[in-house]
């Protein structure tokens, strides 16, 4: 399996080489082929994965790279990273497939495809890396391609500023994160994530763990993003091209939560314990803040992409709250919510991109009403995605938030129980607000007559889902349904690994 994991990184690189070997007009197809191949390859991990030992790091490859730093090329996959890995390869493949028709058949199309493949190397590497420094290198690799996508292929006058804001914010976070990693290494003498997870904070004093958690946590909190460090996100999402938004929301944000879970909670338990309540508070504020910002966007002049971006702040708030409980249930919920958010928000951004392509805008009020009538299947898909996003039982959005709430009801020993109960209540309120804005959106877009009473509001029929859109969007919708009906699919994988991760934290 180790070979397979290396191939997952090597194949996009090969795709890059082929991209520049063939004429530029073939670029989009080469990209789609590479994306599909990587996805199929990642599916091949499934039968090879030993589900009985989901908590163990499997397919390990460990070779020294830079001895001066103690940097090793160390890969592996376990129950926590496997779902995220598959999410990454799936979303990238769908994005590359979706982009085949829209990608220009010239040099710029080639660069566009190259950036997505480079992005994939960084994203896949982040979830595979088992060496803190290697993790950091992959974490950094994603910055430039995403910057390029927003800066060059984004829309709106503000796109350059948005791209700058994105990269400067995230770089500040990752620079601090690096300091945290180096601090861990200075005290424990290793970057090996497997060994550090086993030690579970052993060898680091409370003060060191607190400092390291603060540094590392800041880096991940910016990436996730946690309120009030989220301000880069709405701008970046609004300006990014469709596939950029999908990957940004679907995968890049998960790199933050993944790091917080594996490195923050798993390797710095005392530090995590110290800051858990603060993390929960910020996450809960994020839930309410995101929902209120969305309700604001649902009024006249609001923008659909910006609305989805703010909804991400809210959903990520749930993930943070789940992590903050430091319980098995909470972390399970956080991981599940991460994957679910990747699927649902990916779908939502695809839908918003469809509007952009059809009508050239994502302004909620210019898009018009009565989509059920104008484009039946398109409207239904929006309603479906919105229901999933608001956490309707039976769809993927439900379980993550439920588990988080359950986790908050009984936080880990030593954490303030009443405090978390307050957070739980506020988060519940946030869920209601979330439902409010999503229903507002559905009402605004899908319902209503296409012709107003005076005949003034006349909306043209809209092209319904094309085959290309069906192919690249339905897998997300299907998985949303499957994950909602059969959550054990992910939880059975994640739970043993989470249990092991929390090894030192006593269960209540």
């Amino acid at each position, binding site marked *: 399996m180790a070979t397979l994991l290396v191939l997952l990184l090597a194949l996009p690189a090969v795709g890059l080489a082929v991209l520049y070997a063939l004429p530029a007009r073939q670029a989009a197809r080469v990209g789609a082929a590479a994306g599909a191949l990587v996805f199929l390859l990642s599916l091949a991990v499934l039968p090879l994965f030993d589900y009985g030992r989901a908590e163990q790091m499997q397919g390990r490859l460990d070779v020294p790279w*830079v*001895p*001066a*730093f103690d940097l090793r090329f160390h890969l592996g996959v376990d129950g926590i990273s496997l779902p995220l890995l598959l999410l990454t390869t799936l979303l990238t493949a769908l994005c590359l497939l979706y982009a085949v028709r829209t990608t220009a058949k010239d040099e*710029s199309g080639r*660069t566009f495809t190259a950036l997505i493949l*480079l992005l994939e190397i*960084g994203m896949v590497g982040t979830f595979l890396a088992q060496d803190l*420094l290697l993790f950091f*290198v992959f974490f*950094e*690799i994603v*910055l*430039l391609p995403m*910057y390029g996508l927003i*800066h*060059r292929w984004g829309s709106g006058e503000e796109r*350059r500023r948005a791209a*700058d804001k994105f*990269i*400067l914010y995230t*770089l*500040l976070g990752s*620079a*601090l994160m*690096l*300091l945290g990693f*180096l*601090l861990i*290494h*200075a005290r424990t003498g290793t970057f090996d994530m497997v060994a550090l997870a086993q030690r579970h904070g052993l060898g680091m004093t409370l003060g060191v763990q607190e*400092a390291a958690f603060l540094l590392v946590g800041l880096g991940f909190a910016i990436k996730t993003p946690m309120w009030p460090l989220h301000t880069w996100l709405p701008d970046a999402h609004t300006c990014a091209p469709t596939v950029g938004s999908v990957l940004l929301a679907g995968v890049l944000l998960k790199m933050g939560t993944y790091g917080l879970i594996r490195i923050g909670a798993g390797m710095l338990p005392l530090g995590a314990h110290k800051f858990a309540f603060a993390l929960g508070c910020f996450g809960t504020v994020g839930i309410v803040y995101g929902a209120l910002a969305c309700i604001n966007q649902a009024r006249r002049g609001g923008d659909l992409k910006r609305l989805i971006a703010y909804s991400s702040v809210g959903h990520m708030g749930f993930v943070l709250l789940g992590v903050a409980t430091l319980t098995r249930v909470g972390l399970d919920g956080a991981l599940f919510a991460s994957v679910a958010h990747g699927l649902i928000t990916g779908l939502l951004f695809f839908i918003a991109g469809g509007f952009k392509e059809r009508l050239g805008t994502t302004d909620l009020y210019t898009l018009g009403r009565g989509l059920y009538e104008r484009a039946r299947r398109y409207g239904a898909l929006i309603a479906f995605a919105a229901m999933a996003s608001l956490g309707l039982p039976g769809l993927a959005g439900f379980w993550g938030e439920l588990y988080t709430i359950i986790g908050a009801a009984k936080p880990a020993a030593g954490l303030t129980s009443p405090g978390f109960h307050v957070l739980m209540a506020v988060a519940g309120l946030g869920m209601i607000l979330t439902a409010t804005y999503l229903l507002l959106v559905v009402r605004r877009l899908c319902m209503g007559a296409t012709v107003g009473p005076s005949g003034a509001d006349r909306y043209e029929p809209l092209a319904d889902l094309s085959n290309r859109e069906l192919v690249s969007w339905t897998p997300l919708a299907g998985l949303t349904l499957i994950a909602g009906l059969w959550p054990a699919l992910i939880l059975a994988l994640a739970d043993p690994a989470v249990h092991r991760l929390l090894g030192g934290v006593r269960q209540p």
Partner: protein
Amino acid sequence: MNVSALLGVQSIDYVALLPVLLTAGGALAVLLADLFLARERRTWLVWGTLAVLVAALIAQIVLWSERSAAVRYTFCVPGVPGAAPPRSLLPCSYAVDDFTLTLQTLALAATVLVVLMAPRRFDVPFGEYHFLLLSSLTGALVLVAARDFVTVTVALETLSLPAFALVGFGRRAGGEAALKFFLMSIASTAVMLFGLSLVYGATGSLYFSQVYGGLLRAATLGGAPAQLAGVGAVLTLVGFGFKISAVPFHFWTPEVYAGAPVPVAAYLSVVSKAAGFAGLILAVALAFQPYAHSLGILLAVLAAATMTVGNVIALRQRYAVRLLAWSTVAQAGYVLVPLAVSKSSQVSASVAYLVLYAVMNLGAFAVVSAASGSGAGHLPSGGELAGYRGMYRRRPRSAVALAFFLLCLAGLPPGVMGLFAKVAVFKAAVTGDLMWLAVVMAVNVVIALYYYLRWAAVLFDVSMFGAAQLTAGAPAVVAAPVRARTALAANLAVGIAFALAVVLSFWPNPALDAVSHWR
């Protein structure tokens, strides 16, 4: 014990000196050849200079191959006849160890790139130019091998004097820049000599090993000599501070770089700066070690100020060379960080940073030099940044190379080499318990990313005459675009730097391990 030792005559190891001798001899040969060459054959001098440098590099390889045997010391004060202590304990003026070899190789290889990166129709007197370059290089080679302060001072002057003249070759503001450089440099040397005189007064020697012993004694005894020696050490460091353009001794840097021809600016920013750092490292790590703790605090403050001022002012630059000048100021701040660690020696991180920095900085300068040209259509200060707009269309390979070097300087993948350089420095700071300095540096890395990335993005901006420039608010003047045709040699320089940068991105170990066992 041979006769020369009995007579108190120093024995000289000519093999150890070979790179220096070749370079110095080559300098004279180039000057003489210039007299006898027909005007149209002057370009041969370029290849002659390169041959000298390659010969010196081959001599280096010989020295590298036998370095594991023993460190070569030469110009040693002979010991008492008959006693014959090991060479390493004798006061010696010249040593060939890992540190020397690494930085000598760095200086020689960097000068090869500097010679190659000359633009088309480079309008300088070729004979003098290459003679001065090789002379200055001789100073740099001696400086990094020097193990006493007299040799350091002489080498530093040998390095600087030809550099003044080289700066004067600049077409526009060359004369003024040269004068400024000269005055600043003289002042710094004066300060340094005064400091050295105090150190000599307190310790009675100028050999590093004996200054170390003397300071140790002075520090334990305390009182006036200890204070005197402390002041002397600080003043000596101030002298080096000028050479490496550490804030607040950096004022000459942007003017001089902008006024000088671009290859000379590249030389100053890499070879001259590396030699200055070598002197500083030797002084701090070998001679002033007993005062490491208090000097460490001073260097930490210096590092923080240097990187912050350099980066903040670089944000406002509109010209390529000026931006690179301020960026080199900031980069010097990063190199200073490991030196500020007093607890355990982190010198290898500084040297590794210097080596990696040399590659990426020379690469960036090489592209700018080729793009800004020389002669009538020469763009001052490497051209305006706006002139680089859409360079990817006209010269895709140069644009990609420049973008890569800028990302390396910023430390952002795919410029992994630069990332490793930054990690080395961060690691030194965190290991040495200088967390505050590491956080200052982290913020600086973010500031720096902004201006490097802005320039890199301009290269790929296709909206050359796009809406932004046609709207009423924007000025109608479009900056002169950088050149499309460049010299073969300059492209070669870019290519070499690019290849090195890519290799070091995947395999940085040679740079990182170079002096890991030094001292």
